[in-house]
């Protein structure tokens, strides 16, 4: 059983559409991190959120940390093929725990 549950597991959308990926847990975290991983590469950090209710925007990506610090979401506006990849959330408690990931495919 994963400490962090990500949904959906797979997501395939057309270029220009919006998408949201969720990361949920029953545990409270001191920080929540999002990584993106491309095939054959290691995960790369996208953002870290540390305050309950915090919202961070990076160009077309919006990250939100839940008020209770147990969940997070990643929203991508007007997705592009370059957004294709595996999106991983990670919660920091006494150690860093990863979700299983959401595989996002953006079709041109």
């Amino acid at each position: 059983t994963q400490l962090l549950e990500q949904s959906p597991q797979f997501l395939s959308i057309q270029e220009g559409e919006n998408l949201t990926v969720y990361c949920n847990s029953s545990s409270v975290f001191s920080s929540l991190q999002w990584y993106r991983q491309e095939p054959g590469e290691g995960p790369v950090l996208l953002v870290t959120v540390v305050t309950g209710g915090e919202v961070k925007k990076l160009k077309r990506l919006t990250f939100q940390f839940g008020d209770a610090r147990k969940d997070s979401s990643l929203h991508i506006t007007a997705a592009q093929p370059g957004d294709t990849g595996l999106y991983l959330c990670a919660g920091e408690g006494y150690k860093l725990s990863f979700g299983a990931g959401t595989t996002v495919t953006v079709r041109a």
Partner: protein
Amino acid sequence: NAGVTQTPKFRVLKTGQSMTLLCAQDMNHEYMYWYRQDPGMGLRLIHYSVGEGTTAKGEVPDGYNVSRLKKQNFLLGLESAAPSQTSVYFCASSWTVSGANVLTFGAGSRLTVL
């Protein structure tokens, strides 16, 4: 800056053989980690190190050993490989962002045990 470098990138072993995965980082990070990544299971921590000369077990340490003789290097060993150890292995080092411990990963080492 090379960041985190892992070698080899690919390796095929027979059951019972031994091997060592090498990880080097040039960022002067204290903390280093070894993870394995399997489909549908995310990244699971094998072993980690909080500094030169110290190592500790993660959540799936059985069948693996590690050493951190130098700050920049973290080695992962398999003494007697088993098919269940077929996986992609990632080394990482960590730094602090806004008080959070975040990771820089290597490109991975894909191991197949026949």
